[in-house]
């Protein structure tokens, strides 16, 4: 739900990503908006293309894929029309990405401190500013208490610590948009909890627009203000499945919403199912399903 009259930060319209060789669509005609301070959850089965969607939201397509049509706009700026170096300036600074597997996403040849500083200096901070900011953001993710953290290599850290480094890297330049791709995969439950709390806290305090991609319905439900379910063929609609009848939409089970604990995220927590809109039409009023649920949650 948008806060006040501010325009949505991220606007995706009619986005289609195809494989370059076969032309097969990985995601087709997807539209969504995310406002500042909001967390959009994207739930889907494995292979439904949600990682592709997440990457496309920061203007990136993996090798062999291309953004065939549609647009992604960050604060009004269309990403696909930007020249390469403009896009590079935005990446890492205005829009960032937290990967699924930090152990392979962090450069094994660089020390943690250096990696973090590099992102900052590549986006215009001076050495001193960068160093100070690195300390600051590491403290925010809970790694600030040990100074040695700057001089270790990624493989020396635990999975949870690695993920927190990735989170720190993503928040370092105070981005406007963050895409998180299943950042709790492979972590044990307690560490998952901790990572999620960190993410929730920082999203709230930074006021970023966040997109949380996952297959884990419960997690997404807890974290996001809104959740969208995502199947192979595109967004799901609760009542009418999408054209591909072979894929049934994956509804977020009602039961789990009632059972899961509510994190303290500002704004009413609800599951919002939105039908696909034609571009340009006004947004439909939010379907406030949660009336029944929020009362049971409020009781917790």
């Amino acid at each position, binding site marked *: 739900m948008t806060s006040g009259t501010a325009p949505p930060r991220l606007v995706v319209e009619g986005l289609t990503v195809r494989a370059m060789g076969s032309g097969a669509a990985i995601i087709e005609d997807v539209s969504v908006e995310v406002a500042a301070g909001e967390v959009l959850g994207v739930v889907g089965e494995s292979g439904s293309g949600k990682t592709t969607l997440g990457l496309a939201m920061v203007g990136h397509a993996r090798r062999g894929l291309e953004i065939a049509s549609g647009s992604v706009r960050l604060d009004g700026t269309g990403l696909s029309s930007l020249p390469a170096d403009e896009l590079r300036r935005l990446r890492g600074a205005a829009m960032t990405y937290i990967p699924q597997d930090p152990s392979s996403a962090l450069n094994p040849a660089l020390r943690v401190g250096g990696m973090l500083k590099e992102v900052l200096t590549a*986006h215009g901070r001076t050495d001193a500013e960068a160093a100070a900011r690195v300390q600051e953001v590491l403290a925010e993710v809970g790694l600030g208490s040990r100074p040695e953290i700057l001089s270790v290599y990624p493989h020396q850290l635990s999975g949870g610590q690695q993920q927190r480094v990735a989170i720190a890297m993503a928040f370092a330049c105070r981005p406007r948009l963050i895409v998180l791709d299943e950042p709790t995969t492979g972590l044990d439950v307690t560490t998952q909890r901790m990572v999620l709390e960190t993410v929730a806290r920082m999203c709230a305090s930074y006021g970023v627009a966040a997109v949380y991609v996952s297959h884990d319905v419960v997690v997404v439900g807890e974290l996001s203000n809104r959740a969208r379910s995502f199947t192979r063929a595109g967004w799901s609609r609760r009542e009418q499945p999408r054209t591909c009848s072979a894929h049934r939409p994956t509804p977020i089970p009602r039961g789990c919403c009632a059972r899961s604990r509510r994190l303290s995220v500002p704004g009413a927590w609800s599951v919002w199912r939105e039908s696909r809109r034609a571009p340009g039409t006004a947004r439909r009023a939010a379907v406030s399903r949660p009336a029944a649920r929020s009362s049971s949650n409020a009781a917790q």
Partner: protein
Amino acid sequence: MTADVAPAPPVAGAKQRAHPVARLIWTRTALGLVTLFVVSILIFAATQLLPGNAATAVLGHNASASAVRTLQLRLGLNKPPATQYWDWLSGVLSGRLGTSLANGQSVWGLVGPRLLNSFVLVALAGFIGAFIGVGLGLFAAIRRDKPVDHALSVGALAVTSLPEFVVAIFLVIIFSTVLLHVLPGVSPLESNSGALKPWQAPKELVLPVAALVVVIVPYIFRMMRAATIEAMESEYVEMAQLNGLSRVRVLLRYAFPNAIAPTIQVIGLNFLYLAGGIVLVEFVFDYPGIGQGLVNAVADRDIPQIQFIVLVLTAFYIFMNILTDVVTLMATPRRRVPR
């Protein structure tokens, strides 16, 4: 501030950092020395204890019995094998290498200058080859699947596995004898005096070094290219791109350091190869190194020379093996620094 949930593993400090490397050096050196010891026994056994003993081998089967006996006494062949071996080994270790059977000069006098010449050859060929191989590999990986890449890859394929003496001969044909007459086909460096150092006659080095370089570059090129491509397709490079780092930076700080580690191993293996490769190449160019020395010594059945040169070559081999493993380890933080 959120506290750590799991007890944090101790972060490795500077003191611990040296351990895997130091440990590797100690164990491998110890193993290397043992291997060298066994190798020396093998060399000695092969040259002095085999049937049709050394004296007959030198003098030929038609030599008179008394001549053979005299030589046997002179070589100490009547003593028990262990004593002979010990005499020889202690001699080598203390610098008394004996006299050449072919011309009566001291072995060290004959082989010493050759060592330097060969060393220069190996060092030049190794480093130049590594430089070119790494550079080309990087270049091909960046221009992947473009015509340049295909041309280089096919070129590497065509040249790879050519015997080094064939390469040397082709170079001689092209550059000094038949097509062009630019470079000398035979080296004028005097072996006995050692007066003329290799670097004082650079023209003589060009073709031998070129021959060796041509043989080793394809391997280094292929590995560097493959490793760089693998690095460029890795998740951490994608992450760097998503963080908006420039192409140059991604290449130099993310792709290159990770691609160079396996390539270093191949470079080391090629240095190993050079120890054997110089034999034929020096022969072709009449270059006065230990390779040529070995061939001459074998032709003359000059056992002390053979023993010493083979010992030097194997020692170099063992040492380079250790050095390669150490440098590869240092280039791979994941193995160099323990968790």
